[in-house]
């Protein structure tokens, strides 16, 4: 364990720790471009040079490992001059097209120029012309090689993380350009990360390009609901300038570092899977009769629904089935169980959410496309297809009167059971969910729910890690989070529930389900906790 001094501060680090990492631990930030903690060390940008006593030349802090007794200086005049000159070199052939560059505002050239550059330009020469200007290199990424600083992060990502090897550096000297090998395309399942790791505007995200300037984005930590991995993400939304990005609110998702879950990465399916938040939403409660849909306000809808439902719970509760979803949060599942099982005594409370087959890899992607199957399991809800089919067969035979479906598209999941007809024929059918699907098209009562981006709560990933999702936006239109819908039903049914927040629900849940014992939102924190 070497002990060294960086800018007069002493630190002891693990053997093999690089200077830049040790400095980070001390809160000393050393600028860098090519270094990325998730990739191999290239050492080419030369931005992280520092002075080390007894070493004749400045050293790159991303590569040099700490030695006992080392004395490092990161703020000397020499170091400052070196940074300034590296920046000047990097900008010699950079187009400085910031006003029309989508990276502006999160560009490391801009940021470091303001922090470490601030020199007068003395460039009188023409710039070297590069070949690729706004060239799509795959479905997700646009290449602008004149903006590239040749840090080789993209090359290393495709070589080392996805191992797909699409990128290379072509030509030599200041004619070097990054690019895709001939007859290849950047179309791997993690291609969006290339835009994240590009420190400049050379690789931009085709989905996000020109939708919104980054400084208008409101960022909220959350968890991707796309599969059972639960990659940590940031939801980036534009709420103040609705005229941008054709009125959509969520502009993009970005991965958020969590070395226990997703490192720095996320898959493209998750990254671009946010469109449902602002599209095809169920905006208002509604009632369908004889094929006619009538929109209602929440009071009317709940009252109308409960008139029938209340009577059923009194007379024939064995003929009611409630189908919950592993898309729901722990809190929502807990409340649903409390209402339907504990308070009302309904037996047929089942979990629905079938997995598509295949599509799992070594990196992040899980074949289970539901974020909270493990949480449901901990709350005693395990999906059994046979039980669901049994319930649907009973409905077919007229032995079931009411079917309440949370979120899942039952019609598509059980094509042989003719669910669309059942939903119409039953005495009572309801769909509680955020977006239109075949099930919502047939159900008699429709209650619009918030998406994950519009509510708080927790999910439990496939490894048993409990993680928090947080409200990034208000619900679009009239939807309410499922927990609020459940609380509203409970209240109108005469139950007195005390919850003021999701946290209070969680605290109660953690006392009742052994896996969650002792957990609090505070303990879960930003990175989640494995149970």
């Amino acid at each position, binding site marked *: 364990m070497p002990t060294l001094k960086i800018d007069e501060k002493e630190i002891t680090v693990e053997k093999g720790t690089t200077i830049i990492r040790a400095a980070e631990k001390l809160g000393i930030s050393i600028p860098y471009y090519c270094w990325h903690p998730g990739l191999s060390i290239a050492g080419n940008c030369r931005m992280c040079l520092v002075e080390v006593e007894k070493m004749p030349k400045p050293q790159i802090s991303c590569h040099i490992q700490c030695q006992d007794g080392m004395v490092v200086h990161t703020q000397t005049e020499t170091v400052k001059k070196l940074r300034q*000159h590296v920046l000047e070199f*990097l900008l010699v052939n950079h187009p400085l097209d910031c006003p029309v560059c989508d990276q502006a505002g999160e560009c490391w050239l801009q940021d470091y120029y303001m922090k470490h550059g601030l020199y007068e330009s003395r460039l009188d020469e023409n710039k070297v012309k590069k070949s690729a200007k706004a060239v799509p290199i795959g479905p997700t990424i646009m290449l602008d090689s004149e903006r590239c600083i040749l840090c*080789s992060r993209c090359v290393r990502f495709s070589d080392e993380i996805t191992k797909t090897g699409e990128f290379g550096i072509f*030509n030599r*000297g200041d004619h070097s350009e990054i690019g895709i090998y001939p007859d290849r395309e950047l179309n791997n399942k993690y291609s969006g990360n290339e835009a994240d790791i590009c420190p400049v505007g050379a690789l931009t995200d085709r989905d996000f390009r020109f939708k919104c300037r980054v400084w208008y984005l409101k960022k909220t930590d959350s968890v991707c609901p796309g599969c059972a991995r639960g990659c940590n993400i940031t939801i980036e939304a534009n709420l103040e300038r609705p005229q941008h990005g054709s009125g959509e609110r969520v502009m993009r998702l970005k991965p958020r570092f969590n070395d226990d879950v997703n490192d720095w990465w996320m898959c493209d399916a998750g990254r671009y899977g946010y469109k449902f938040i602002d599209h095809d939403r169920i905006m208002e409660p509604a009632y369908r009769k004889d094929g006619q849909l009538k929109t209602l306000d929440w009071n009317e809808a709940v009252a109308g629904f409960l008139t029938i439902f209340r009577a059923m719970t009194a007379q024939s509760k064995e003929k009611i089935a409630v189908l919950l979803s592993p898309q729901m949060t722990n809190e929502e599942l807990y409340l649903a169980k409390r209402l339907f099982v504990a308070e009302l005594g309904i037996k047929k409370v089942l979990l629905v959410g079938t997995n598509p087959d295949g599509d799992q890899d070594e990196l992040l992607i899980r074949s289970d496309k539901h974020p909270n199957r493990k949480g449901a399991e901990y709350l005693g809800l395990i999906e059994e297809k046979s039980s669901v089919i049994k319930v649907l067969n009973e409905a077919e035979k007229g032995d079931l009167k009411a079917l309440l479906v949370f979120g899942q598209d039952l019609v598509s999941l059980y094509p042989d059971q003719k669910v669309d007809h059942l939903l119409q024929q039953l005495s009572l059918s309801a769909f509680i969910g955020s977006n239109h699907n075949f099930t919502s098209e047939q159900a008699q009562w429709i209650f619009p729910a918030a998406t994950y981006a519009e509510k708080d709560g927790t999910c439990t990933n496939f490894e048993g890690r409990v993680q928090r999702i947080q409200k990034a936006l208000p619900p679009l239109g009239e939807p309410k989070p499922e927990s609020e819908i459940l609380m509203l039903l409970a209240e109108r049914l005469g139950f007195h529930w005390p919850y003021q927040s999701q946290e209070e629900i969680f605290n109660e849940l953690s006392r009742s389900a052994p896996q969650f014992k002792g957990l609090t939102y505070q303990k879960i924190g930003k990175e989640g906790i494995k149970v």
Partner: protein
Amino acid sequence: MEKLISRFFEIQKANTLSVYLEEDGYEVAKRALREMKPEDIESEVKRSNLRGLGGAGFNCGMKWSFVPRNTGKPIYLVVNADEGEPGTFKDKYILEKVPHLLLEGMILAAFAVGIHKAYIYIRGEYELPFLRLQEAVEAAYAKGFLGKNIFGSGFDLEVVIHRGAGAYICGEETGLLESLEGKKGFPRLKPPFPAIVGLFGCPTVINNVETLSYIPFIIKRGSEWFAKLGTERNGGMRLFSVSGQVKKPGVYELPLGISLREIIYTHAGGIRGDLKLKAVVPGGLSAAILKADEIDVKMDFDSLKAAGTMGGSGGVVVMDEAMSMVEALRVTMQFFAHESCGQCSPCREGTGWIDRILNRIINGKGRPQDLDNLLDIGAYLGGTTICALADGAQMAFLSYLRKFRSEFEEFIRKGSYAHA
């Protein structure tokens, strides 16, 4: 003065095995493999003060001693025959005229370090040297001088020739290794050094053609004799490639302590047309240029370093009074800009930027502030990059500007050749 390597340059068909054998070729290796211990060869080479003659000038035996012998991995010998330093053509002579001497040196080096596989990375443009080398390797294999059980000694050495594709940077030893592995010739971050992690991740000895070619002489006649030929810490002799405006350009094998003046005036016949000497590049294009009044310097690595330049590859480029330093520097910097691999920001952008400024000046559009800007840009060009290309470019560049500043100033003022 006695000639060692260059003695063979004058023998007809010394490139053939039969002639080489007539000159007692392979006798040293044969005897060493039968009678000597590997560690004795290594210590002989170390004591001989043989320096790396590719350009870095590192003690050859010392370099061998860094190689770990018991890692369980194979150790490789890589011969750097990618002679690309402008003004240097001595390896070409060895490869063309006496390739068996290199092979004999390789056998001795391989035996000393415990190596059974060697690669010769030869410059792509070297057509005849390649053909002669290939012929030599085939002939040596046929005679049992390479391959399994060399000379019946039980020692094996396989030799593979690999042709480069025309990049100067592939002569940088780690760029060479990358290229040899089939990758783009990007020099590697160090540490680890190739002695520990080299070719295919294994310990590797990389030596220049000329360096290896001196080893048979050292083993034959002893380290003490060889060391005494040179100066205190620079053993033996080296091949100086002399070009430019001299009467007799060529390769001259001379002791390391010889003065530059003697090389130019005694051996290369002085300046063509009996013009005045203006400047000399003493060790390949990457070395700092010397003015006419600096040529009494001794041509060993240490003396040249003390004089602010370097021994480098031994490429001596002589310029007479008619030479424009502005044009000479422009050509020099064009070379570095063209050959920078493009990895490190200062080298990639700096060499190209300087090249464009010099071109503007040559085109008569220089500005008074250009010189100070150039000096400042040059100050940050080298010393901070992965390999030594930028260091060489910087050393050469700054030396022209500093030593011939008034010529540059005058050129910028007049907008045309100052000497005309």
